[in-house]
């Protein structure tokens, strides 16, 4: 029943049963329903399925493996530590997705008042003081595509092989 011995294949596609059994969390919806209904809504008005964000985690086996590789060979990891890092990971992903977006939207609204184009927003700029750690800053220079005037906002992070200090603005035709 331990998550570590599970195959990653099964747990990658959906929320694995063995994960749910041992912990005190209950997932709100079943695997396939969640995935399918998200896709359904994608095309339409863009409304989200009632998927509470705190219910979506990465498989604990993967998370545990990465943790094990990070600590020295002889180290052990408590089970509740693994579970909690799993939650932290989901929080982290949501955080780095939403923070630059907020900044982008703010600039977007300001720019819509004037008529100039919008510069992109660097991910590190969006994150501000909080996450600007060397290990992240070098990995994530970013550019953001401007909206095309409709409701759709597309966020793009691009890598830059040469160090571009500012931001690249990419235009759709």
């Amino acid at each position, binding site marked *: 029943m331990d998550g570590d011995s599970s195959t990653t294949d099964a747990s990658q596609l959906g929320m694995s049963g063995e994960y749910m059994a041992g912990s005190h969390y209950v997932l709100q919806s079943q695997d396939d329903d969640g995935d399918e209904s998200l896709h359904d809504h*994608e095309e339409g008005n863009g409304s989200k399925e009632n998927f509470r964000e705190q219910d*979506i985690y990465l498989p604990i086996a993967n998370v545990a493996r990465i*943790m094990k590789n*990070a600590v020295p060979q002889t180290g052990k990891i408590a089970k509740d530590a693994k579970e*909690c*890092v799993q939650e932290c990971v989901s929080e*982290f992903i949501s955080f780095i997705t939403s923070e630059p977006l907020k900044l982008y939207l703010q600039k977007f609204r300001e720019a819509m008042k004037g008529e100039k184009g919008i510069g992109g927003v660097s991910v590190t700029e969006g994150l501000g003081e909080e996450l600007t750690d060397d290990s992240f800053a070098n990995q994530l220079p970013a550019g953001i595509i401007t909206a095309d005037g409709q409701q759709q906002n*597309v966020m793009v992070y691009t890598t830059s092989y040469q160090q571009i200090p500012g931001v690249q603005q990419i235009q759709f035709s």
Partner: protein
Amino acid sequence: MSSNNVEEKVNHASNSKGISLPMTRVKLIMKSSPDVSSINQEALLLTTKATELFVQHLALSSFNNGSGKDQTLLYSDLANTVEEKETFQFLTDILPKKILVRDYLKLLEENPIEEADN
């Protein structure tokens, strides 16, 4: 920008030993943020890799910061690291320090707080 080329590179990176987290699941979590409609493949790859680095960073910091008993990483190590390091401040809400009920009751006795209806 040829998206086919990018997709190939992305798939290659995830199939080789570079990435050990499922990108489909990462994408799901990203989409749960409001106002996000679609996600670029490169962005997804970057985020996945960054997440991996984050796990390593958090695990190692907490381990080094820890009580040192039995070389085990405990929940309390994580909670302490999150409180102390500025980088991890965004995690304070989901990683509260655990306290025994009787200790909490004792605390309440010493510092009576008016119960507010939140």
